[in-house]
């Protein structure tokens, strides 16, 4: 199907997210505005105004009632999805690079930037899921990253661990209750920043993308690298698709190098790999700048990508996407069907 082009932002997109039902897409960009869109037709539902600087991150809680955002104005904000009402603002000394709700929506984490005199931190707040309730101003947990700042972070299953990706290419596992560092592994090449971390639906494993041109799937509890996907360009984002066993990688030549390289060289394509066999199976062109984020519909029926070029492209998967199977997968599917009879 033809992709839907969402052209409501004036500057580069930084993150896009589907709501848990997949009906709404939230997008943030460097133009200070949060947008909500209907995913099925690309119509804009509304905007959330208030941030004073570029936005870096957005997340929606599991019930689609609360929306969290973070940006370069050193604030993390909580909004009521339905009305666009600003519920809460947390101030920090530095920019907020990543926000994420826990699986049950009762915790919210934020990753803050490292800057002159301030180390990078991961802060956790307890959230009352009722939009009418008053939110706590004080964090319940604060992890200071002394070695290398965290660039991305998220909650594992049951909010047991906080997993963070770092600027030096390592991935670490913290106890989400105590904030104790349990384990750190050099998953990616040294000093190649981890640019994205997205979860599988049950949060037992996650995918990381890195500037070292690879994406990797790691197990949440052991931090063992299960799969590696090698691309030929620095990666900004990686997502795991439900239903089908694929992963989608996005990236491209760094934005600052784009003017010195031709478009064909930029490699501004979304790449599909088979999750289990680690082989590339397809690419989707369209953006004319690097892809900053790719997000997958929770039901696995489509994906959207936000680019440095200021557009969100929403794609709905066609039948061949679902029909495609490797020989061994087909064998397995047939064996399953037989067993169910």
């Amino acid at each position, binding site marked *: 199907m033809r992709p839907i082009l969402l052209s409501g932002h004036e500057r580069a997109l930084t993150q896009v997210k589907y709501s848990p039902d997949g009906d709404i897409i939230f997008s943030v960009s460097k133009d200070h505005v949060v947008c909500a869109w209907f995913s099925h037709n690309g119509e804009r539902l509304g905007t959330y105004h208030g941030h004073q600087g570029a936005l870096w991150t957005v997340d929606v809680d599991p019930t689609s009632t609360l929306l969290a955002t973070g940006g370069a104005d050193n604030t993390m904000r909580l909004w009521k999805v339905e009305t666009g009402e600003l519920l809460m603002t947390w101030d920090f000394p530095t920019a907020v690079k990543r926000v994420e709700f826990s699986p049950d*929506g009762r915790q919210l984490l934020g990753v803050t930037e490292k800057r002159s005199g301030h180390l990078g931190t991961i802060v956790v707040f307890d959230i009352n899921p009722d939009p009418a309730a008053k939110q706590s101003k004080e964090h319940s947990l604060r992890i200071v990253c002394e070695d290398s700042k965290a660039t991305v972070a998220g909650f594992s299953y049951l909010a047991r661990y906080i997993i963070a990706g770092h600027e030096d290419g390592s991935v670490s596992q913290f106890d989400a209750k105590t904030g104790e560092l349990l384990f750190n592994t050099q998953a990616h090449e040294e000093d190649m920043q981890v640019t994205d971390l997205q979860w599988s639906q049950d949060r*037992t494993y996650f995918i990381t993308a890195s500037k070292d041109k690879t994406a990797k799937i790691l197990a949440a509890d052991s931090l063992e690298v299960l799969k590696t996907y090698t691309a030929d360009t620095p990666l900004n984002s990686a997502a795991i698709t*439900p239903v089908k066993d694929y992963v989608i990688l996005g990236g491209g030549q760094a934005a600052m190098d784009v003017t010195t*390289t031709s478009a064909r060289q930029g490699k501004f394509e979304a790449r599909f790999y088979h999750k*289990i*066999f680690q082989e590339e199976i397809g690419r989707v062109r369209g953006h004319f700048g690097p892809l900053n984020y790719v997000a997958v519909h929770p039901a696995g029926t489509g994906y959207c990508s936000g680019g440095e070029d200021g557009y969100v492209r929403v794609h709905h998967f066609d039948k061949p996407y679902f029909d495609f199977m490797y020989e061994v997968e087909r064998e397995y599917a047939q064996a399953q069907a037989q067993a169910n009879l």
Partner: protein
Amino acid sequence: MAPSYENLPIDDEEFDESQIDFTDLEEQYQVRLDEGLDAFVVVDGLPKVPEDNKAKLVKFILRKLNSVGKVKEDGVYMPLNEETGQTEGFAFVEYSAPSEAVAAVKQLHGTPLDKKHTMAVNKLTDIDRYGREGRIDEEYHPPEIEPFQQKEHLRSWLGDPDARDQMVMFRGDKVGVFWNEKEDAPEQVVDRENWTESFVQWSPLGTYLTSIHAQGVQLWGGKAWSRQKRFAHPGVNLVDFSPNEKYVTTWSHRPLQVDENHPVPSLSLEEDGKNYIIWDIATGKPLRSFATLEVPTSTDAEGNPVKKKMQWPTFKWSADDKYVARMTQGQSISIYELPRMNLLDKASVKIEGVMDFEWAPATPKRDGVRTYEQLFCYWTPELGSNPAKVGLMSIPSKEVVRTRNLFNVSDAKLHWQSEAAYVCVKVDRHSKSKKSMATNLEIFRVREKGVPVEVVDSIKDTVINFAWEPKGSRFVLITTAEPLAQTAVPPKTAVSFFAPEKVKGGGVGNFRHIRTIDKKNSNAIYWSPKGRFVVVATLQSQQSCDLDFWDLSFEKPKDDKDDKEKELNANLQLMATAEHYGVTDIEWDPTGRYVATVASAFRHQMENGYHLYDFKGTLLREEHIDRFKQLIWRPRPATLLSKEEQAEIRKNLRNYSKIFDEQDLAKKNTANRQVVEARRRLLQEWLAWRESMIQMLKEEGAEIELNNGKVRTDHDGEVEEIEEIVEEIIEETEEVIG
């Protein structure tokens, strides 16, 4: 407790420095001090004369000695033997400076004085150092002959049962040799980190892989890729092999520095100040060394000096490794005979104005000439009222067998056909006003009686590239209307194909134009080493990167024959066109089955890697490798099969190809089976791991996670049903009833 120095042993009694034997180290690192005797030389081999004649002899040798420096006053001491009253046949000489003594050793050692006497000049310090008592054994010991050691077979790669070809790839800092596996990843033979410092090169028959280092050149080969030879040449830049791998030339832009304080293994003082060394590969010893010749600097129209590109190879080899020649531009060609490296007939061949020369790439077979000869072709520009000339000279007779006068020549290029059947001289001619340029081709038919010359002057434009079909008689050329200037957008080019006419009796008729393809960007021609197929490409261009695969003997259905092409020994067909962005080099494999195109990091940093095509232009494989620099096929030596055996194989090609097809299929099937097996294993491992994870989540009671991250809310039970009725009017008709 803080560390204290009090209980450290002050005097270690067990250790006595004087007990250690340092002699081996002292010998190894012996520093040569200035002994104050550096200006002295010992002259030996002089005649023994009575005292009366001594002064005369001293005067005589002084004349020689003073030719390289100044001998100090009373600097010659010639001792007398008291018993015989005659001189001893040697003399001590003191120069005014050590450098003069060095020069004397270098230049005067071995100078003949008369028929019986040859002067031996050595530095006094050397005599002391090497000739001191004990350094020379008084007794003769026959040199020990080392037991024979079986060497590795240097051509073992030719015995590959699948007759695959090897290639060397240089990427990043790694050099590896691989078997070509067509679509599949090349099979690694050897891969080494930092094998070379600048580039790699095969010897012309594929026996050795050459690596270049700051200290010199190394040759590698055999099954284990062990070092076969090393040639010490500090600062070496380029290497050139003789066609039969007997000799190798190394060149460095920096003159060699070899003296006592900078010794270089296997080089002697003779090599000091030289740029070129010609080596014997079998012995690993230098044969002769040369310094770079000054190229006469010409000036352009505005009087600025024109930077001349160095010609490489400077020393050009005849096809049979018997001669090597170097041109002194504008003056002469010096031909040296191998293996002695002496100047042929002790004199260079004077050719006034000579601009370029090229040996025949194969031993020529001229009609009516039975004696052995090698040929080379040269050209001279217009000099005063004399016309420009192209000549063919036969060696060793130095006889000019053919010349041709040319007019209005601005430049000429010499192109030999691979079997030395033709040499085409591409002559760039200017009009009288010197404004417009055109190109003539002067084709010498070397094998025919009297070497007739055929002129192709139908070309109106400048020819920028020309290539003969290897082992054939067809050629391709590329023309452009404008001269090649350094503009941002290179001008359009045209590709033309030529073939000889068919004549009765199977001879080679006149060359005729087959077809020209206009409005191309092509600038490079790569013939298959076996002929017939040719790739015409655009290299090193920002805008385009086309590769056109042509077949010159395409087999058309019988009834569909072009009348014009019927008369020619060619049937041109474009088989495929491909694109390889940023392509810088094209390499045919030695069998003419595959073509590799390379985007090399030597030229640019964009999309480095290689593509592999078959001869038809079908893309088999492409690989992007960061900092990919070189891909070179390993050359093969000439086939050992006789003409009859080759014809036999060609006749039965169908049977062979059937077998090969079956083998390919079998191989593919096993490969596929392996891939499928690997996938099946991956799938099972993954499913098992997932199963364990789900089990774990169940035990932990992680409901949200098991529900794919959806939080059950109270609303979930009360599903609101919205009924939508869509009416579609398919047809509407109005009927009047009544």
